[in-house]
């Protein structure tokens, strides 16, 4: 039984990580006993009561009274918890923000709690992706069944897997689960491995590419995404049906379901770009507001992400839009979709077309979650331009991918990024001129949309994380950073997210960033962060450094490569994030910082933190956000840190972001991060 074990694990440090296989097996039998719960509440009375209640339910409880600490714990020990319960009102961080972070970075089910039972607040919980909402005072009966959320999530992940066509894998996973054969997974938990995401299993494997991923999710690489977007554009967003898209894409092994779920995400993303409040399900076309029109299609999918991005990173919604638009192939004449302030969130979500979204509902939820999360993030970022930039960058990144695919971006290249950079312009919706294509997603929303993007991407990366997990963001970030990447990445981009990487259009960006491939190795560790860091610092200065996108790319790649970066370096992740931001910010906005911060976070828990700290405060906030997100994306299963790397689409995003930056301020620097060679990221 875990009743006693709960106490041991209660330490503030990471939760039990040391589940041995035997324990795991034993635990599996006793499930839900042993469920590892992290409860966060600033009220000590409630915390004490909850802890006792959860222990009585035979869960393994770790309590925490500060959201920041909770995040640290989660990051440190990615697979140390199965579910998180958090209060809504906390002094150091808003519960919804924490929710977003977790969703993006770790993709764990989160239950919100509050004495407030107002419809508005509960709705917020839903839209931010909480898997449940408890009204205080909480009764023990309500806690007895929280394990269902864990199982449900896992189940959806598996479903994704199956949808992606890897039936064998799915079977294998299920079989593993059934056999309670934990040995295969590194997970610490017992039943966790089997029931948990396949990621766990892959963790040890570094979650590498989709092929080896246990998770049956299809990883939407930048290339793949570009193909997808191209197909969608060819068909016309209204006529784009999964079947036809599949045919056009002509990718072996891809199933209609994969495409369908990806399309759904994409639509949400586009919707977001267009500024429509998230509505994951029907983003498309309806959103097409003038600017968004271009984004329309994009937004629908990315809507979720973008919005998240936008929301969080303040990514200029426009940037996203631009990006999207670009992606869509349409010259978003007005990229500047003046995304309504916060729709940013969605904008980026798109980026992660990851199939994960396939889960459909979850996705949306996730997206929402992410999106919201992003919101939270941007806030930290403060309206700093950076944030906006980031967003833009993010969106751009994402968008770039898209755009890239469309080629429209190219012209934009920077416009997108610039757009992103526009954070300041908040209101400005990405000047069409520059972006033209690139969905300005990030228009100065002020909030670094990037963060959203990242977030979105992240989520995708994580594969299951679906929605918004930031993976989408990565692209953005990367794009900005990587603008250069577009070419490189295109192929590699963390696979998940968008094919952004290859935006041919994005010219200058040639991010040094070794794009994912290279990056992985480098970035993995510090590089990842470094970027972010540098970027931010520079950002503040407005240096359009090219950021040595390398780092960025790396991070993204890292994510992508799941194994590389993620497994090891969460850092990479962060880097990416940052990069994205940096570019966006180039304007010097703080956005970068935010972005970076995000990146940092993604990097992994450790790195993330470090970097974040180094970076601007904003960065931290961003990073946190970003990382959270990013991670999710890339790492499909594994560590959310990879958030960025996965995005592959980041490249595009980056470019998009960079483009966006232009408008904002002398955005041109797509990534102005020049100064930042990832390697040197000064910590």
């Amino acid at each position, binding site marked *: 039984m875990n009743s006693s074990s709960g106490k041991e694990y209660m330490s503030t440090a990471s939760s039990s990580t040391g589940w041995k296989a035997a324990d795991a097996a034993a635990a599996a039998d006793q499930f839900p006993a042993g469920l590892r719960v992290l409860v966060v509440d600033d*009220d000590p009375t409630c915390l*004490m009561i909850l802890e*006792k*209640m959860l222990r009585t339910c035979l869960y393994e409880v770790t309590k925490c009274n500060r959201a920041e600490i909770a995040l640290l714990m989660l990051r440190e020990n990615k697979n140390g918890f199965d579910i998180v319960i958090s209060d809504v009102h906390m002094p150091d961080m808003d519960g919804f923000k924490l929710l977003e972070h977790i969703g993006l970075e770790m993709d764990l089910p989160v239950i919100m709690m509050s*004495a407030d039972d107002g419809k508005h607040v509960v709705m917020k919980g839903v839209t931010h992706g909480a898997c449940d909402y408890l009204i205080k005072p*909480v009764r023990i009966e309500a806690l007895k069944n929280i394990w269902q959320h864990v199982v449900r999530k896992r189940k959806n992940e598996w479903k994704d897997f199956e949808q992606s066509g890897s039936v064998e894998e799915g079977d294998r996973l299920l079989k593993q689960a059934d056999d309670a054969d934990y040995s295969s997974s590194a997970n610490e938990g017992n039943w966790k491995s089997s029931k948990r995401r396949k990621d766990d299993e892959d963790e040890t494997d570094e979650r590498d590419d989709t092929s080896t991923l246990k998770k049956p999710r299809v990883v939407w690489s930048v290339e793949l995404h570009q193909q997808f977007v191209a197909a969608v554009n060819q068909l016309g967003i209204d006529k784009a049906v999964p079947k036809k898209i599949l045919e056009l894409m002509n990718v072996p092994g891809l199933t209609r379901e994969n495409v369908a779920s990806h399309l759904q995400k994409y639509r949400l993303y586009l919707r977001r770009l267009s500024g429509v409040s998230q509505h994951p399900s029907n983003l498309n076309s309806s959103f097409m507001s003038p600017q968004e029109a271009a984004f329309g299609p994009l937004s629908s999918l990315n809507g979720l992400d973008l919005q998240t991005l936008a929301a969080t990173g303040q990514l200029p919604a426009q940037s996203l839009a631009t990006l999207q638009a670009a992606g869509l192939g349409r010259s978003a004449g007005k990229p500047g979709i003046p995304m309504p302030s916060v729709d940013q969130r969605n904008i980026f979500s798109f980026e992660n077309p990851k199939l994960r979204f396939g889960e459909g509902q979850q996705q949306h939820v996730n997206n929402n979650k992410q999106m919201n999360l992003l919101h939270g993030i941007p806030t930290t970022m403060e309206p700093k331009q950076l944030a906006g930039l980031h967003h833009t960058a993010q969106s751009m990144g994402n968008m770039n991918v898209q755009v890239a695919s469309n080629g429209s971006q190219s012209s934009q290249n920077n416009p997108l990024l610039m757009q992103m950079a526009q954070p300041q312009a908040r209101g400005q919706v990405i000047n069409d001129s520059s972006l033209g294509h690139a969905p300005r997603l990030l228009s100065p929303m002020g909030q670094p949309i990037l963060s959203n993007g990242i977030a979105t991407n992240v989520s995708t990366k994580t594969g299951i994380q679906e929605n918004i997990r930031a993976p989408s963001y990565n692209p953005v970030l990367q794009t900005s950073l990587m603008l250069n990447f577009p070419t490189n990445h295109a192929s590699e981009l963390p696979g998940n997210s968008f094919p952004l990487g290859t935006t041919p259009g994005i010219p200058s960006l040639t991010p040094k960033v070794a794009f994912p491939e290279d990056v992985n190795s480098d970035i993995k560790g510090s590089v990842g962060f470094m970027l972010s860091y540098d970027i931010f610092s520079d950002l503040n200065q407005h240096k359009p450094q090219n950021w040595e996108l390398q780092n960025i790319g790396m991070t993204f790649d890292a994510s992508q490569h799941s194994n590389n970066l993620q497994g090891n370096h969460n850092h990479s992740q962060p880097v990416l994030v940052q990069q994205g931001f940096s570019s966006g910010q180039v304007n010097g906005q703080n956005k970068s910082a935010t972005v970076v911060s995000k990146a940092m976070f993604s990097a992994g828990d450790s790195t993330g933190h470090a970097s974040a700290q180094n970076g601007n405060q904003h960065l931290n906030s961003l990073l946190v956000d970003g990382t959270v997100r990013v991670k999710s994306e890339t790492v499909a299963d594994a560590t959310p840190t990879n958030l960025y790397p996965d995005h592959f689409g980041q490249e595009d995003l980056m470019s998009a972001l960079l483009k966006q930056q232009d408008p904002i301020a002398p955005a041109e620097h797509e990534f102005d991060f020049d100064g930042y060679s990832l390697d040197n990221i000064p910590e």
Partner: protein
Amino acid sequence: MERNPMRRQLQTMRKSLFDQGYLDDQFVQLEELQDDANPNFVEEVVTLYYRDSGRIILNIEQALERKTFDFNKLDAYMHQFKGSSSSIGAKKVKAESTLFREYCRSRNGEGCMRTFQQLKKEYATLRRKLEAYFQLARQAGPVETACRPK
């Protein structure tokens, strides 16, 4: 019925707390959590509550001493306080908290002040009663307050 007179007295005291509306079902939840491993769980929680909520009360008091009230802040404080109070089952205190919040929302400073005074009274009364209750419980010997006769 308890043979032990102290326990009987304890039960009577407990019942009256519920009957008079000082405590609600949430308190029972706490009692049910008490077990051999945590034989004084309820008392510990209540002690923690009074310690922590005392801080919030002070904050509210200070906020109410200002010339102009920051209703949003007051509402936020009270929200926090209400959450805590409800988690231990402090029924009357919770009711006053709710009323206070309503006055905050309607920007009624006068109402806030009046309600707050009433709230403090209920808060103090409950504390007294619970202290007496726990003291008796300790004297009566280790027994599960809620129920199962040992």
